[in-house]
């Protein structure tokens, strides 16, 4: 149950009072080293976005940058830059991509949370023939990769007037995220005692109000966990976006990254600058809800 986490988390802090032996210290050091290892490529990406262009693509390598600046960011944002600063970012409608990406990611996350939560609630609280079949077919939808889906979906969307439309992207990404949300929420509702529901029903609530007033508030960590995964998927998806968004009118960040690659050169500074800016909302989002995320997964992912 979700109540177990805070207890254990507290236990971790309680141990702090215990005399720490050498093994504890060693363990922490090992952890920091491993996490630093995972962080190094991120650090390198951040560093690349801010160092002088001449230091990129060199052999022997330059480890310590001569100086750091924000020129590549300024170019992307269309701000005035010092003379001599250049980059492919100047030709990229960054603000438009940012707006498209934000609208599409937030709207599709919201839709998949609502529809996925309803589906998850149904799987958890109702019993009907064909339930396993529906559950499996939803999981199957997750197994279809974008590369197999992109062309037939484009043809369908073109007929429906949804290609190169923000609305089309929102619908497509909602569908991608509903199965996983339904699955997580199913596990989460299952972890809540059925008696809560029964009591609400006896008190005269309908199933609908029982869901809204009783189950949903208790399942909020699960919603947070599903929300993060849905957001990250929509924010970073490439295969469908590159086929459906034909023009900057609906194009999102990931296909935009492609525009930093020319036939012979790649503008690493510009590409990394845009990646860092893409990363910021995700980091803030995750930092805010990471505790709920782990708590949500603790009871949502597996509990029967």
């Amino acid at each position, binding site marked *: 149950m979700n109540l*177990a986490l805070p207890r254990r988390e507290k236990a971790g802090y309680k141990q702090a009072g215990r005399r720490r032996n050498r093994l504890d210290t060693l363990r922490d050091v090992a952890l920091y080293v*491993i996490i630093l290892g995972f962080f190094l490529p991120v650090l390198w990406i951040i560093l690349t976005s801010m160092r002088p262009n001449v230091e990129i693509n060199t052999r022997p390598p330059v480890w310590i940058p001569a100086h750091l600046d924000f020129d590549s960011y300024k170019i992307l944002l269309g701000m005035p830059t010092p003379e001599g600063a250049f980059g492919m970012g100047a030709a990229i409608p960054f603000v438009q991509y940012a707006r498209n990406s934000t609208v599409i990611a937030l709207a599709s996350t919201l839709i998949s949370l609502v529809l996925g939560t309803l589906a998850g609630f149904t799987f958890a609280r109702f019993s*009907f023939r064909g339930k396993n079949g529906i559950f499996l077919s939803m999981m199957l939808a997750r197994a279809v990769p974008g*590369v*197999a889906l992109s062309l*037939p979906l484009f043809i369908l969307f073109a007929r429906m007037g949804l290609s190169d439309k923000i609305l089309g992207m929102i619908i497509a990404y909602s569908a991608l995220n509903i199965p996983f949300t339904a699955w997580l929420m199913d596990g989460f509702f299952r972890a809540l005692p059925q008696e809560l529901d029964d009591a609400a029903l006896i008190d005269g609530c309908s199933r609908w109000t029982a869901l809204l007033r009783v189950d949903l508030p208790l399942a909020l960590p699960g919603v947070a966990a599903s929300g993060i995964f849905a957001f990250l998927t929509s924010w970073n998806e490439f295969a469908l976006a590159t086929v459906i968004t034909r023009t900057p009118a609906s194009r999102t960040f990931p296909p935009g990254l492609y525009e930093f690659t020319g036939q012979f050169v790649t503008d690493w500074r510009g590409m990394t600058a845009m990646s860092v800016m893409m990363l910021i909302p995700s980091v803030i989002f995750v930092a805010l809800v990471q505790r709920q995320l782990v708590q949500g997964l603790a009871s949502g992912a597996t509990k029967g």
Partner: protein
Amino acid sequence: MTVTTLAPAAGKRASTRSVSRETRLLPIAFLLPGFLVILLVVGFPMLYSLYLSFTNYTLTSAKSFHWIWFQNYGTLFHDPTFWQAFGRTVLFMTLATNLEFLIGLGIAQLMSKAIRGRSLLRTIIMMPMMFAPILVGFQFKWFFNAEVGLVNNILFSLTGTAHIIPWLIDVPLGFISILIAEIWMSTPFMVIILEAGILSLPTEPFEAAEVDGASGWQKFRHLTLPMIMPFIYTALAIRSLDIARAYDVISIMTGGGPGSRTELIWTYVYRLAFSGHNYAMGSAMSYVTVIISFLFTWYLFRNVIKSRWEGRE
């Protein structure tokens, strides 16, 4: 699809209480919207691509194509490249899931014990999964560049002599490079799920074991590991499905090449369907793969479903 079977079945369990109309119709009302969206975005296009897989449709002859029955499927089953790509995908999946699991379990176990800054560590470790896979592809392609890549440059600085190791080109190295990129990007997912598992465990058995003088390894081996098994199954099931459709990172890093040395199923589908202008063939291949994925999904999720819905129905 199965929606039609919902209505008469919904009341089955409710027979213990009063079978109200609400109980019968609500599952339909709750499931239908999500199901329709999935049907529109995944169902219809995949049906269309099933139809195309029985024709000789290509991107250049989109107007004039005709029905050729199972010809594409026949060609596919005699295509050694397909079977090689298939075998390589299975190998890639096995290595990636197992390595991610081992590394992820190690980090999760350490994280659950860490005292200070756990929130910060958690946010940092999750950063690789916040990057767009396509960006991970670009970056790791660049890191593994033979001339100016970060990896060879580190070797240069460490040894003092220039190593021009063609990471993305040599036979086992290309495969290892894409494996490393995949592991870097996806291990955090394992960490988060397994850490959630470890943190959800009750403390009492551990206190009892401590009283009995159990070592840390004994506690891990005989308490933690068996108790987080459901989390392990879940993490492995999700990751296997995700890797089975791994495409973005590999397509950018090697595109399945050079030649077809690092060809996985979906890079081969792309090569056939889009670069090779044989879309119908690519569709046929998608289908074979999706069906195999489905069997695999069914196999993996059967256990999850069984453990979940036992005693409920």
